């Protein structure tokens, strides 16, 4: 007992016949944060909502849902989830279980978010298992001197400061429990109110943001990916990497990795390094696994984002394809078989019916793959993948060298000639592309440009081929026509930098909240662009050039890297990589976009000193009113994108999606014409203030990129903007509208509180417009506005939606 009292390490696992009753197991990470037990200045007391459950943050959700009322656009009028059905819910009718169309759509949104959130959680948990197995539970979470607040979402949601990756076990326990509770609510006969379904979807979104942070932190910690160390190659200065099909050196043996979970690819990199094969074998990737591979293996390349996956596989450039999980073509095995590319499935979520060869002798596996006795294998142990993949690639390269999968000129001519312009492909194409017309040009006039032009407009789904009566390999035909440009597709991007530095936040916190940095723009997610990948580039370019901070992740980060200016430079080369005005940051893969949440949270925490631990509601309220951030998921396609956007929304960050995003069925739209929706509290004195609609929406789709650009700028307005900040935001909003819509935005006046909110250069003109068009009263002598605005400008305005935050009111109140 003496020993115990003195402290120190005390191993009791060897004792037998001893029963120790432990009142509660207090782990390191948890203990120090207990209210009143602070061990130092940085220890925060626990906030009101650690590890919130379904109902905990429902009041916050209902506040959001009251202002941004769910808008539903059914993609299907029927429900087929139980065998009472199908039920026809057209016109908001009730189904057999009593559910109406609106609640059913809340349910479908919850389902989408469930699948998306589960994908990240499943991935994160899987990664954690593998990393603990490989490195142990005690890998420290230490991101260097520049990142003190290593896990803002973990602290915010769970109230935990994770010290080692092992601490994430309880985070995942919490998330998994909550996911299942929410999945329960999908069952027939649960909610009848769409509001409660949406509150649950928001809860799911929040969990998803936490998932992503957890997953990225674990991999950063274990693989020592870039984070907050100030050496060269970290943070703002991460190196550039090649992007594009044209950058893959196909004369070498080529391994293509696809998916989201990096350990198998990392093992390939390790094996190549160990064997000195870095220059011999080409390791390229598609989707997030490729981004993460570049964070662990310097020679890795990014072949493409999701939208070109089918075409990369069809082109047969891979001597081996290694898939892990998510966003893999479901027909990957069939595609690989056609190009004699052996497939290695490395994850139990996507085994494609292949035989599990984990722990089998690598010699045998390689022999089976190279002989094509089997089209592929499952290897579930990441550390067994590298050897098999590399050795197979080396051998297959020899076998496959003489094969080509690009159409010959004769084949191309044959196929375009086969086309009868029946239009079936157009009706099957998600974007309604006029393929028949292009074929006709090629066949009749020998003009292949219309076909080549389709290459970038095509989202690479292959549905056209499924309906072609002439069995034309349409995807291959387009690739052939575009082959010169495909080969030339050589972009550059920064590798994923991971967390935004605390020091950066300290620099930009004030300008962001004051509005003088007009916004943080976060283009993220999938790639089914309505009008080609160039849209992604344009969005980044416009905002980076206007001194917004542009933070990218995932496919959009890749696609934006494909395009160059006249000098042949990509945006990543033109712009700095720091979290500051004009920066273009590749944050990383999809899971890395948690760091964008984290940046917003750190503004509240580091700049504004708001407490973090278990304090989600207050921080979200802060962000909604003060941090001019806007997500852009221009090609949003998957269930993950649905949950990601919903997670941003709960935290008070709006998002703009492309027109396909309308098929997510739900938007969160504010109504500028309903002043009662924009009542907010001034925390200084508890008074109610009616404010301008900022941000006007939480989730909205735009038809074209031209429309999206001013919309994104608009969604950066916040009630807290200073007049100087507001005038900058207004400048860009008006300018983008004039540039792309050829007109003033119809609602710009709503954001004017005082004359000093107006852009200085156009102040007179704008005042005149306010007087003429809006009937405002202007004192022309002082150039001041006397009547008109929704409210005046009050520099000490302290906006909140939470009664309890009014000064002098009980902090403890829920």
């Amino acid at each position, binding site marked *: 007992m003496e020993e115990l009292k003195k402290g120190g390490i005390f191993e009791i696992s060897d004792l037998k016949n001893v029963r120790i009753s432990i009142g509660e197991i207090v782990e390191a990470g948890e203990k120090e944060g207990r209210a009143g037990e602070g061990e130092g200045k940085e220890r925060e007391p626990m906030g009101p909502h650690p590890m919130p459950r379904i109902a905990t943050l429902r009041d916050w959700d209902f506040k959001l849902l009251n202002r941004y009322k769910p808008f539903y656009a059914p993609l299907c009028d029927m429900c087929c989830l139980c065998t009472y059905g199908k039920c*026809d819910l057209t016109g908001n009718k009730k189904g057999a279980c009593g559910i109406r169309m609106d609640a059913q759509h809340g349910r479908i949104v919850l389902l989408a978010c469930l699948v998306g959130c589960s994908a990240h959680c499943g991935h994160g948990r899987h990664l954690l298992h593998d990393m603990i197995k490989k490195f142990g539970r005690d890998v420290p979470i230490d991101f260097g001197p520049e990142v003190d607040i290593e896990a803002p979402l973990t602290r915010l949601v769970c109230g935990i400061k994770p010290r080692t990756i092992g601490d994430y076990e309880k985070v995942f326990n919490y998330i998994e429990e909550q996911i299942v509770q929410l999945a329960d609510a999908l069952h027939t006969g649960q909610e009848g109110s769409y509001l409660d379904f949406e509150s649950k979807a928001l809860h799911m979104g929040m969990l998803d943001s936490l998932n992503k942070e957890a997953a990225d932190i674990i991999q950063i910690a274990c693989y020592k990916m870039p984070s907050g160390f100030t050496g060269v190659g970290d943070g703002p200065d991460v190196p550039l990497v090649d992007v594009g099909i044209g950058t893959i050196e196909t004369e070498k043996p080529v391994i293509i990795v696809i998916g989201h979970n990096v350990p198998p690819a990392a093992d390939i990199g390790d094996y190549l390094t160990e064997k000195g094969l870095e220059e011999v074998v080409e390791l390229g990737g598609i989707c997030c696994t490729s981004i993460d591979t570049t964070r662990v293996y310097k020679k890795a390349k990014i072949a493409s984002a999701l939208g070109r996956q089918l075409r990369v596989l069809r082109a047969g450039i891979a001597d081996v394809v290694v898939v892990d999980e998510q966003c893999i073509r479901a027909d990957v095995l069939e595609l690989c078989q056609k190009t004699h590319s052996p497939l290695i499935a490395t994850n139990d979520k996507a085994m494609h019916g292949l035989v599990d060869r984990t722990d089998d002798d690598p010699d045998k596996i390689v022999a089976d793959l190279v002989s094509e006795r089997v089209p592929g294998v499952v290897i579930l142990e990441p550390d067994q993948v590298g050897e098999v993949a590399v050795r197979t690639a080396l051998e297959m390269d020899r076998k496959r060298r003489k094969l080509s999968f690009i159409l010959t000129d004769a084949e191309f001519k044959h196929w375009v000639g086969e086309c009868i312009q029946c239009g*079936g492909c157009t009706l099957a194409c998600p974007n309604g592309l006029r393929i028949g017309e292009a074929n006709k040009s090629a066949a009749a006039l020998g003009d292949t440009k219309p076909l080549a032009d389709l290459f970038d407009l095509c989202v690479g789904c292959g549905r056209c081929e499924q309906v072609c009566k002439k069995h034309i390999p349409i995807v291959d035909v387009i690739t052939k026509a575009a082959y010169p440009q495909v080969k030339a597709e050589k972009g550059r991007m920064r590798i994923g930098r991971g967390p935004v530095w605390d020091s950066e936040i300290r620099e930009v916190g004030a300008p962001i909240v004051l509005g003088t940095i007009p916004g943080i723009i976060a283009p993220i997610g999938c790639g089914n662009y309505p009008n080609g990948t160039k849209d992604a580039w344009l969005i980044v370019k416009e905002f980076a050039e206007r001194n917004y901070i542009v933070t990218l992740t995932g496919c959009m980060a890749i696609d934006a890297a494909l395009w160059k200016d006249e000098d042949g430079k990509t945006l990543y080369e033109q712009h700095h990589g720091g979290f500051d005005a004009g920066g273009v940051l590749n944050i990383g893969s999809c899971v890395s976009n948690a760091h964008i949440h984290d940046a917003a949270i750190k503004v509240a925490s580091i700049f504004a000193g708001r407490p973090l631990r278990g304090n989600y509601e207050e921080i979200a309220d802060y962000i909604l009113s003060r941090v001019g951030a806007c997500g852009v998921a221009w090609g949003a396609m998957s269930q993950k994108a649905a949950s990601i956007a919903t997670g941003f929304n709960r935290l008070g960050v709006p998002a703009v999606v492309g027109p396909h995003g309308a098929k997510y069925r739900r938007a969160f739209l504010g109504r500028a014409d309903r002043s009662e929706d924009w009542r907010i509290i001034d925390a200084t004195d508890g008074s109610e203030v009616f404010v301008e609609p900022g941000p006007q929406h939480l989730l909205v789709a735009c038809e074209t990129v031209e429309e999206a650009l001013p919309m994104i700028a608009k969604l950066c307005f916040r009630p807290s903007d200073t007049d100087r900040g507001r005038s900058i935001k207004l400048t860009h909003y008006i300018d983008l509208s004039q540039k792309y819509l050829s007109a003033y935005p119809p609602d710009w006046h709503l954001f004017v509180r005082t004359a000093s909110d107006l852009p200085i250069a156009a102040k007179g003109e704008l005042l005149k417009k306010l007087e003429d068009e809006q009937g405002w009263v202007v004192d022309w002598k002082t150039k001041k506005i006397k009547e008109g605005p929704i409210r005046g400008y009050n520099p000490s305005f302290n906006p909140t939606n939470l009664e309890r935050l009014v000064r002098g009111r009980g902090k403890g109140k829920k």
Partner: protein
Amino acid sequence: MGVEIPFDVANIPGPEVGEVVAPEVIGSFISSAKRPLLVVGSEILRDDFFVETAMELAKKGIPIAATGHSLRGFVEKGYGEKVSYYNLHELTNCLRDPSWRGLDGTGNYDFVIFLGIVYYYASQMLSCLKNFATDPLVRAVSIDRYYHPQARMSFANVSARDGEEEEYKEMLLRLAESIKR
């Protein structure tokens, strides 16, 4: 059920799908509508004809909401002041609310005509109106070159055939002509 294939072939919403009708049918509905509204999208910019057609309809007393970046087309024709920019999501959200005061502050619409909007986005918004703008009924129809099952009434697909553009333009002319207001 309709007899036409949706322009997006899998866009089969359910038991209630829009009727394929001749331009004159829509014209007569517009003629008798209390408060019609023309909603145009960015696809009208592919040819001046469509902007002009919309202006033609506007001259018959049908207000125009310009969504996407279609506004640009009207501005170029010096008609920018007469049309109102709206985001389509925002606009549809307003249309489903009986208490919305409309572009002119005097009330919501009873007959909404979609023209030149990206197919799938338009389809979703038509779906919203079909399912939720029912009391009072807001009839939403499409006069695009696509068959829109989510609309109450729609033109047939004219996009997959030869000479489509001419045929389609003629349909719009017939429509404009048939409107008596």
